[in-house]
């Protein structure tokens, strides 16, 4: 009979920790700030756990079982709603805030982190209050056993949530899974104590709430994503009657979402608006950050490939592409059969599969991933690990096509250690071209972020920076110190006009004053700064 106590102890600690981890995951996905988000969720959660535990300790012995039942019931009822509330907060922020739709802004980060910290604190409070109530009971087990079981819960939660993230399970499935485990724990408690057996019917309420939360979550997630991509805005009174906004978001455009273990890929297709003469468009977003659309796709990929070949002034023997799982760079290399070998290293296998089969993307990459050219080798793996392991092969051209450093994980790909590894794999006369966020500050000069990247490259020995492309920007560097410049006479004739116009270098190293140079620091993996 007393088995109910260990069961409820385990399910309760497992579920509260799981929900706080889910909250951290949601916030990480939206902000890209992994370290800050994890810390600001787990800290308040642990504080809540501690304060909840001392609050639970004060409940009088006579009301323990009913208090435990009520608290557990309340947890099962409230906790599945927390991720939904978090998402609703983000949706409201996007539509109501003066900061616009930009979730990268400081104000957005403060608001979202504040909200998440509060919710995490609340879930910790609920979880913490339950343990003293269980411990005061005659559990017929030594207290240490109950405590040990209680501490196994977070470990099980960590492993489960990490496993579900690795399997790229949608959050709605995670909510269902954790909620059902919590509900089963409560069912165990009710059925083992005749005193509270008459409360059995009340279990249908949290079951209904859980079903509703799991059902509403993907819908709200899609509405939030669309809202941010479309830049919808609403007043408070419109938000109180949001039916017209929701109707617009549901009706306008289609959103295809693919969740992989590493990222969320969104393909947002907008229909043409004939009445305003606006053509249709398709845009790709990785972790909600725009990558390219139908208007920029050729400019971006043609510029990267043809600018590299032009700056190199010869056909490279050995090319390394890091990233570019959409296959669009490979498409541009297709006509260049004289290149001996092209090695492409992409972390996300699911992204490559999707780019191979999705009608829009496979059309854009002209089947470069379905029919791989004979001189191309595809490696599924982490680019950093690939470079760390590589001590023998040298490449004439290294193209780095990574997302912009929005967050800690991506900032590692713009670090001193990473660039040192790149330099180690570069042949003496080789060239490195990377997709560089050309941030401009208010005085239209290079922003701190861009300068941090240039300074970090220089610290790694990758010099002579040539920043080009006002439309989509890139940075070329080499290790031999030879000045880089375009030879406009040898540019191929079959490029798009917009691509030619992108072969302009608006900034040179000499444009950066020594004062500006000294103000910025080198970004390293162990000391992330400036990005």
């Amino acid at each position, binding site marked *: 009979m007393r088995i109910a106590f260990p069961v409820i102890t385990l399910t309760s600690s497992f579920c509260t920790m799981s929900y706080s981890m889910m909250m951290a995951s949601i916030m990480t996905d939206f902000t890209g700030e992994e370290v800050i988000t*994890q810390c600001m969720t787990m800290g308040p959660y642990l504080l809540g756990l501690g304060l909840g535990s*001392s609050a639970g300790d004060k409940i009088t012995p006579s009301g323990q079982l009913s208090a435990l039942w009520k608290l557990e019931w309340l947890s099962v009822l409230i906790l599945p709603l927390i991720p939904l509330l978090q998402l609703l907060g983000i949706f409201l922020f996007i539509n109501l805030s003066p900061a616009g739709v930009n979730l990268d802004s400081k104000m957005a980060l403060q608001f979202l982190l504040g909200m998440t910290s509060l919710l995490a604190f609340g879930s910790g409070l609920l979880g913490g209050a339950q343990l003293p109530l269980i411990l005061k009971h005659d559990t017929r087990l030594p207290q*240490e056993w109950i405590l040990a079981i209680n501490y196994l819960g977070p*470990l099980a939660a960590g492993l489960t949530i990490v496993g579900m*993230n690795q399997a790229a399970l949608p959050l709605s499935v995670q909510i269902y899974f954790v909620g059902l485990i919590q509900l089963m724990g409560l069912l165990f408690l009710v059925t083992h104590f005749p005193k509270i057996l008459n409360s059995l019917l009340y279990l249908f309420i949290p079951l209904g709430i859980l079903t509703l939360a799991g059902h509403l979550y993907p819908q709200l997630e899609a509405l939030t994503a669309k809202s941010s991509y479309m830049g919808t805005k609403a007043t408070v009174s419109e938000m109180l009657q949001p039916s017209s906004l929701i109707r617009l978001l549901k009706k306008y455009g289609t959103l295809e979402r693919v969740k992989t273990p590493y990222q969320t890929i969104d393909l947002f297709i907008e229909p043409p608006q004939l009445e305003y003469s606006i053509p249709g468009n398709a845009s790709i977003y990785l972790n909600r950050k725009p990558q390219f659309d139908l208007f920029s796709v050729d400019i971006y990929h043609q510029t990267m490939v043809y600018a590299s070949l032009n700056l190199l002034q010869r056909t490279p023997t050995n090319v390394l592409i890091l990233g570019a799982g959409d296959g669009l760079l490979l498409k541009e290399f297709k006509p260049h059969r004289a290149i001996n070998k092209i090695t492409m290293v992409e972390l996300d296998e699911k992204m490559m599969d999707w780019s191979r089969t999705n009608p829009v993307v496979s059309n854009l990459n002209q089947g470069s991933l379905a029919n791989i050219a004979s001189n191309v080798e595809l490696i599924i793996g982490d680019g950093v690990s690939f470079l760390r392991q590589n001590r023998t092969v040298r490449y004439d051209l290294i193209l780095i096509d990574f997302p912009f450093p929005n967050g800690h*994980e991506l900032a590692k790909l713009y670090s001193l250690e990473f660039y*040192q590894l790149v330099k180690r794999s570069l042949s003496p006369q080789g060239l490195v071209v990377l997709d560089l966020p050309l941030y401009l500050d208010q005085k239209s000069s290079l922003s701190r972020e861009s300068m941090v990247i240039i300074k970090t490259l220089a610290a790694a020995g990758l010099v002579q920076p040539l920043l080009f492309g006002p439309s989509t920007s890139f940075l070329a560097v080499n290790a031999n110190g030879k000045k880089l410049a375009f030879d406009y006479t040898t540019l191929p004739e079959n490029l798009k006009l917009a691509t030619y116009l992108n072969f302009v270098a608006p900034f040179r190293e000499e444009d950066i004053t020594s004062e500006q140079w000294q103000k910025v620091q080198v970004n*390293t993996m*162990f000391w992330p700064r400036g990005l």
Partner: protein
Amino acid sequence: MTQRNPRTVYLFTLLLAFCSLFYELVYAQVLSVCLGGTKNQYLTIIALFTCALGFGSIVQARLKQKYSLRKTFFLIEVLLTLLGSLGPFFITWILQPGEGQQWLMLKVLTSYLVVFIIGFLSGFEIPCLFAMVKDAQGKILAFDYLGMLVASISFPFFFLPHLGTASSTLVVAGANAFALIWLRSDEPNPKSTILLNLIVVAYLLGIIFWKEDLNIILSRLYLGGA
């Protein structure tokens, strides 16, 4: 165990809890650099830490009859200071690329074991602190959780951007060393206590002065001498 001034005990409770969680955050940071997947590394470390913390306190309750609480506490703080300061360098070193990649899983498990040990040893602290002040368990626990909150806020917003991973962990290990001095402070030799305090202060200043170099050591270990 000798009864201590409650306010000092609360302060040290806050400090020790801060150090424990801080070490774990540093480990999460190092492991996310060496193995990738920041989000999952942080989740795993926090889960492992919470679990180990609990098991530590359970084991401590069993051992307290056999061993002197004071000696145990002192030993725990020595081990925590050492693991907190040297552990990140050790993990970065064992996870270097190159030879022995077939042992990668073992190396990863060793790294997580170090994380578990820190949590486990930290679990010993609270019962020792309980023994220092009568009837103040609630307050001690409150300061313990507050310390963890301070660690979780200060690590991403202050320490990581201003000192980097290596210097941060060494600074915090230095602060942890103050706990060692404090534990010895009721012994009848104030001169040695003053000397120890001066050594720790000099150590902390040294770390702040050489913060760039210390982080470079970690980078070199990561690159395996590249």
